[in-house]
């Protein structure tokens, strides 16, 4: 499903969103605030997601359940 390309796809989506926001931001004296707030939010949220995604892309350790000994050790 999700693979190594996902961050790039996400980047494209965010870029598209930013472009839309840039042009669709309500006109008037608050236009700058709308643009900057929405674009920065999108970018920082994307960064956070992408970093989290990348950290799990090729994880070096896997979860271990607490309080249990491996059954193989007990059984044999």
């Amino acid at each position, binding site marked *: 499903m999700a693979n190594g390309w996902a961050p790039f796809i996400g980047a494209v989506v965010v870029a598209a969103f930013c472009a839309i926001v840039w042009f669709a931001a309500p006109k008037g004296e608050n236009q700058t605030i709308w643009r900057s707030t929405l674009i920065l939010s999108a970018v920082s949220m994307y960064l956070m997601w992408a970093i989290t995604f990348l950290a799990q892309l090729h994880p070096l350790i896997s979860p271990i359940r607490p309080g*249990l000994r491996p059954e193989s050790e007990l059984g044999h």
Partner: protein
Amino acid sequence: MAPPKDTMFRSADMSLTQLYISNEIGREVVSALGELGVMDFRDLNSETTAFQRTFTQEIRRLDNVERQLRYFHSQMDKASIPMRSIYDFNNPFTSPSASEIDELADKSQSLENRISSLNESYETLKKREVELTESRWVLREAGGFFDRARGQTEEIRQSVDDDDAPLLQDVEQHGQADTGGDRSFSVMNIGFVAGVIPRERIAAFERILWRTLRGNLYMNQSEIPEPIINPENNEEISKNVFIIFAHGKEIIAKIRKISESLGAALYSVDENSELRRDQVRETNQRLNDLASVLRNTKSTLDAELTAIGRNLAAWMVIIKKEKATYQTLNKFSYDHQRKTLIAEAWAPTNSLGLIKSSLQDVNDRAGLSVPTIVNQIKTTKTPPTYFKTNRFTLGFQTIIDAYGTIKYREVNPALPAIVTFPFMFAVMFGDFGHGVILFLASLAMIYYERKLQRSKLDELFSMIFYGRYIVFMMGVFSMYTGLIYCDAFSLELPIFKSMWVWDNDGRGPTSSRVEGYTYPFGLDWRWHDTDNDLLFSNSYKMKLSILLGWCHMTFSLCWSLVNSRYFHTPIDIWGNFLPGMIFFQSIFGYLSFSIVYKWAVDWAARGQNPPSLLNMLIYMFLQPGTLENPDAPLYKGQATVQVILLLLALICVPILLFLKPFYLRWEHNKARALGYRGIGESTRVSALDDDDDDEEGRTLNGGRESFGDDEDGIAMITQDIGHGEDHEEFEFSEVMIHQVIHTIEFCLNCVSHTASYLRLWALSLAHQRLSIVLWDMTMKNAFGYTGVTGAILMVPVFYLWFVLTVFVLCVMEGTSAMLHSLRLHWVEAMSKHFIGDGVPFEPFSFEVLLEEEPVE
């Protein structure tokens, strides 16, 4: 030329304007401008004292009216009559005419007289009433003493009456005394003093009497059950009635003196019970009369005050505005010949049209043929920094302004802070549940905004209310980061299918990955409650902090490029921005790249152990060119790349250090060679360089190109009224020292600031652990019970958990996360680009005035 629209990105474009106002409409013009609230008037009479100014008389008169209004207010407080709230008026902000102000002043004068006379008579009456009440108590209590004392008269030795009487006469006259019945004390030459004294003094009173009279007295006292009200300050005092019997005129006089000095009130009591009864009756009657008079006076006073209370708030607002108007008029200079007032003010260039049209309105209303002239003056003075804020941006702007006033037209750090501040907060506060609490709280505050704004809030809550939109953004981002961290009140959020499957048919304890699948959004929830979740999340959050910090600092550093481009100082780009950027990127940009690169590589598939990034960085500095493990590099040619980057960083240091100061010196010397001089350095200049005196005169004119290229000579006035903002003289050593400090600071800060972003990791770890502990200690235990016990136990435990969640995790932890986020902005981010030597814009505005001193 229409100026560009003012946005929050840079402070508003300001222009220094000069107003020529006809003397007759000065007050009206200023009051109209106060309603607009966009002009920051400069004080043109700064050398005169407050008393020498033109409108001191008017201000004094208004001060008096204000005092009278305050007096009404205090009287209303005393009578606990409510004032009609300022918000109940339809439009309390209409500016009144001068005659209306006069009327108001007269009215408040006459009202004050009336109120104070009513008050005075009320207080006199009240005092009289207290006296009568006390006297009644004395009569009643003293009567009791007398009755009791009469029973004991026979035991009093008769010898005291007559010193010559034989001792035995006492016994002989015994029977006579019995028949005497109504024997008076005066016969026995025993006098008495009766009165009332505050209860707390009674012990001292007794002691003093005992000592001074050596025990020659008989004192009786009893408590008045109801407290006596002091009419002067409405305080309740409990008092005692006392009656002292003593022997001899001098002693009685002494007792009187002592009791008066101790604040006792003395009342005459007749020892004859008949007369006493009459006295009581009389007192009661007088009390009744007095009560009815008092009632009348009180109701008249209350009616008067209620009538005042209906308008008092509006009057207060009007007088406040009027006073501010005259105070502003005092800043103007007056041209006696042309009978005009001259004012200078900073105003946003975009508001000039508005100013002109409202001045035209005032002129038309007054029917004056002479128009008010508005001139724009060119000046070299630094204009004040002004950001038009709205409800949403106000909080963020305040955060930045708290650090320092932004330089005029500099990039405003508050604009990106709208997002980055709450986002950094949320990285530390990441928990979906806590985010929801913040979000709902802020929504409630925003929904009841109007109501809350009008009510009085305590300090802590009013601070939170002030930042309600910040809390709103914090809540939104906390929910997001909570989803990313996969935490909701420390519990997992299994939204998507996990990328881990427990081995051994789901029993564990080890797990293996679902092939080719990565958890699509946030952390995998399988990590919750595992043995090694900290191992994973610490590594993840530490790297997350470094990466976010790097992004934030690079972003902030870029603003310095924008600033130097805007202010046309290319040397700041070549001497500060570029070397700084290269230095930063070649070390920490490389570190960030390595983190991402290491993540992107499938080390298991390569069958290789990934190198440690920390060691890599240490080796890069300590042994350039060698790797910790030369056989397993991060990528091919790693050693070479690192050497190049390190050299790049090292080269940047001398550039950062020397380029700007030497360029500035070269530029300065070139200007000198061409004959330019700073304004006002004439004498010294000629001493330094061997210029001729006549040449100096010429060069002086050459240096002032920025001044007065206005159409008329009006602009001259601004030059004289400087506040000592001279051109700074160029001094190479100063510039050099400044640059050395900047270089050292920048290079060290690159390291320490990057490390400083690790607080994101530390705080988020602490927050998560704390909420896990709280859950485990309360709710998890309660879930352990089943049946009725469990149900009953659940209620208090839930409340405990919820209260602790709100107060400890949301309020306390939230405050700490907010402070850390604040620091990241003030120190880590703003040090990269903030210039900040601006002058705040303080417009003359009635709205601001009423906000600062609210009428309530």
